[in-house]
């Protein structure tokens, strides 16, 4: 019975449109940024905000949040992204760091001043040393 309810709630989650938030260190004076700006940060076209080095962080490749982020924010296919980073690699630019979980993502962003990362909105809790600077949903 317990399994059944788990399954039910999981199905409900799938059916319902997920919403994600982009979080940043509270000390970062960056608010209400545009999607394009966010894209530029994640493609490492914008490296600094004022004097602070921006450190975008991805979730694992298989993570649904990452897939959604690539689709909705970067609006680039996996192949295109791969090609992009390969070319960037030769220019000495590495893709963003990868965190395994929302938990570590929040912890990382909270600890590092210029860090930004995305997590499902439901995993966010306001007491962390982070703030939401962008939201989107599927």
């Amino acid at each position, binding site marked *: 019975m317990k399994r059944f309810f788990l399954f039910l709630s999981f199905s409900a989650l799938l059916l319902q449109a997920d919403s994600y938030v982009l979080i940043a260190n509270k000390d970062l004076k960056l608010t209400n940024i545009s999607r394009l700006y966010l894209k530029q940060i994640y493609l490492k076209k914008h490296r600094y905000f004022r004097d602070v080095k921006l450190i975008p962080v991805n979730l694992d490749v298989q993570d649904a949040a990452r897939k959604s982020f690539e689709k909705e924010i970067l609006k680039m296919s996996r192949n295109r992204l791969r090609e992009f980073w390969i070319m960037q690699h030769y220019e000495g630019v590495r893709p963003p760091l990868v965190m*395994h979980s929302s938990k570590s993502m929040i*912890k*990382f962003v909270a*600890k590092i001043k210029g860090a930004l990362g995305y997590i499902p909105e439901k995993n966010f809790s306001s007491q962390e040393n982070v703030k939401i600077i962008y939201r989107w949903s599927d």
Partner: protein
Amino acid sequence: MQKKLLTAFLIVGLVPFAIVYLYLIFYAHDKITQNILSREFENIQSVISTAQNRLLRADKELQFLSKLDVVDDVVVGDIDERLARLLLQKKKDMHAQLEFVVIDPSFNYVTSSAEHNLQGRYKYLHALQAAVKKKQNFFMQGHNLIFYTKLYASFNHKFLGYMLLEYNLNNLANLTAKGKNIYGYFLNEKSHYIVGEHKQSHLLLQGREGSLITKKNLIVYKRLHSHFLKGWYYVNVIKKEKALDFLYDFINFMSLMLPIAVLLIVLVSFVSAKKIIRPLQKLTESVLDITHKKDYKHSIHLDVKDEIAKLSDAFNELLATTDTALEKLETENKLRLKRFIELISIFNAIIQTKSETECIELSIEKIQDLTDDKPIYFEKKKSEGAQIYVTNFEKNTKECYGTLLFDKEDFSENELRFYTSIATMISLQLERIRLINATTQASRAKSAFISNMSHELRTPLNAIIGFTQYLITYEKLKQEQMEIIGNIENSASYLLEMINGILDIAKIEAGKMELHYETVDIKELLFNVVSMLTPLAEQKNLTISLDMQRCKEESIFTDPYFVKQIIINLLSNAIKFTEKGGVEIRLETLDTKELQLSISDTGIGIEAEDVEKLFQDFAQLDHKIQKKYKGTGLGLSLSKKLAKLLQGDLLIQSEGIEKGSRAILILPI
């Protein structure tokens, strides 16, 4: 040979054995020890290299891990345990007792490869701090060699903490030598820390490397040169007894085997030498036997199948060849002898020929018989062939008599020589025939001349003798005239006698003396002659004795006239040359069916060397005693010729001057 072979075998067998034995006793120990040591040096070098490589690899792994992006998780305290999983995986991959530890800048544990969660401050904090201070990226702690490296964030290169690799040095124990007779260990002199099996009491290790030989062990050591393990040595201990066990066993074995081996080698050498020599001896004996008996048909059989068999086969072949050659030689010899005899018979036949025509014809016939060749012709002119030359004695030149022609063109050298020699033989015979003919003709001419002359001389002499005898009877002659006429008569008679003698000799030589054989009473004949000459002996006061008792023959078949003439001659000679003493006549029959009449006197005798001269025509010995006796000098010569004519002989014997002489007449019965 057998001794040499035996010696060679013994040398070949014993010397290497002795060398090996002496080598084992005097040199092998050191040599093997040195060998073991040098081998062990290589071994420990290999162990050391491997150990150092392991440490180096561990350090490199640490360096590699510290550079990975995942290190960034230190920032979030590795809550995703990504780093922990990586370290655990790495630890498993390295198959060794080791631990990865990550600590933050304040030396608190962040994560590790350990099974259980480590919390609080890093346990070797002070050692780490000391190493950091010394700027040494490793330090020793207990059994562990701990490497460490600083971690930096990939995104902003800020110091994140330390990653450490605690490498348990006992990991190296599986590199050390382990065995029944050998063990090895790593040793830190200062800390007396030891990795691996250790049964050795404290050693004094010095320098980069070295070796020790104790009573029981061979010890080899070498210092590690890696900076991780400064002051460490690797030591291999080999149990001497076991390492040299084989050698000692072998020496014992060899010592035990020494008498047996020597005995065996001697025995085998002796038997082998004998075995090798035996067929040779047999071969030698057979060869000697064959040589001794000259039996070349015999062959040698040996029960061997080696080189000696080949030798005996070769020898048999030689024997067969020799035998064949000998037989061939013998056949050839026989043929040659036959040819030689034939040739001699040819020569003999040729010599027998009496006329030139006969000689040529016979020669051709015989040569043809001998050679069985194509016909041979004779041509009485000089042409191509075997030319026959004959000496012309009048001109003293060689003239070509003719040529032997052969119906054959190619002559071998020998054939040519053969025919040339036959031609020479024919030439000689032709010359001989010519010479004989010439001589005979000359002799006949001389005899005829003498015979004729004698006859012509006799006729007037008879007239002279007749008339002088008539005058002697004429009574009116004076004494002086009578003596003169007597001398004439004497001289004429002497001359007549001489002419008669010459006539007889000439007749005999000319072959015209005719013999009239009849049965003659020899005793009566002898008696008559002795009676006839007895008055002569009595005149000189000589005694004559006649002895016919030993004559067993009443009569013989001969010519009485000539026999009588010989006896008269001999007896008158005896009386003539004897001054005192007497003449002894003896007639006897010899065993050889001959009659011997011997007349011995006590006269002047004759030198032995002069006897032969007596029988020459007109010979009188030139001696002062003999000189005073007159004679024609034909008597004995004529008598001898007559005796020969009657198929008898006449001999004169004398022991010297004044010792008398003896005439012996031998007649056939």
